[in-house]
């Protein structure tokens, strides 16, 4: 187990570029894939793409970002990679439908963004579970699914 605490930098930091470049040439950069829905965690244990068992904790004021460096020395670097966030884009048919859709999303504590007349839901679980909550609105055409990616 490699015990890591805190974020030591970011892969785009100019001050670290040369060191990371050298490590990359030696194949010594390990990626730690973190599911997007787990990005808010301050403490987790995951296996890197090279098989390193990483036990990670962050300070309470630290926020994990894609590309965050969790470990850097002469031997290797460990970089965080977020798995792709899945998005479900919905368009309400009219103002009444928009109010209903907004009410459901808020009541269900979904994470959302707003995009040009659409509600974009940041999916944290199976899409079927989300569809089931809006079954009536989807079936009567009040809400249309624009994209799921």
């Amino acid at each position: 187990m490699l015990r890591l605490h805190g974020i030591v930098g970011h892969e785009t930091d100019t001050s670290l570029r040369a060191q990371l470049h050298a490590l990359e040439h030696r194949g010594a950069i390990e990626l730690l894939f973190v599911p997007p829905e787990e990005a808010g965690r301050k403490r987790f244990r995951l296996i890197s793409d090279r098989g390193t068992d990483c036990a990670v904790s962050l300070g309470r004021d630290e926020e994990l970002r894609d590309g965050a460096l969790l470990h850097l020395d002469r031997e290797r670097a460990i970089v965080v990679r977020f798995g792709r966030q899945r998005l479900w884009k919905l368009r309400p048919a009219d103002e009444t439908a928009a109010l209903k859709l907004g009410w459901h999303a808020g009541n269900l504590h979904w994470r959302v963004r707003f995009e040009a007349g659409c509600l974009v839901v940041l999916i944290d679980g199976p899409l079927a579970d989300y569809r089931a909550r809006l079954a009536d609105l989807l079936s009567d055409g009040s809400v249309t699914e624009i994209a799921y990616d």
Partner: protein
Amino acid sequence: MIEAGKTSATATAARLPAARVGIGGPVGSGKTALVERLIPALAARGVDLAVITNDLVTAEDAERIRRSGLIDPARVSAVEAGACPHTVIREDPTLNIEAADELERRFPGVELILLESGGDNLASTFSRDLTDFWMFVIDVGGGGDIPRKRGPGVVRCDLLVINKTDLAPHVGVDLELMHAQALAVRDGRPVLLTNCRSGEGIDAVVAMLESQVLFRA
């Protein structure tokens, strides 16, 4: 960063923020009883511990734990939600975050803070801003069909605990089936069985906390 090879829990505990573990679940499922079992089990393993309890408008659970003799009463803090219990562990966990910060200030070196939610429903979940890991406690007395109802608490928690296993034959619950259905709705994520009255299953819960939260194994 802590270098590999310098990973003993006791060596790192003084320098690291305490891990925060939430315990949620329906009223009467055995959350406080689980806390009362975890305290001595963790203490026996040398874990420096503190507890926060949440109640609606009283400090009853905190008083119960303070009077238990299991832990220094000063290490037990109470938060009164004043509203639905999930509001202070999910929507606005500020009160609990402040209580945890205060415990860390008063007890430097504390490694683990257990945060017990007030009794709630199957939709209750913890904010990641508040906890590093959270358990959801249900019991066989509530019905063998609870896992099938796929409540967010049951599905999303890091560890589902099915408590009061000894009652299964008395309430007509097929415990093996309930366990299997719980694993199925959670896509195989951890489900542990406990009987907090006898202490059965507690070691497995502690082992999971040591591995996934305290990073001791």
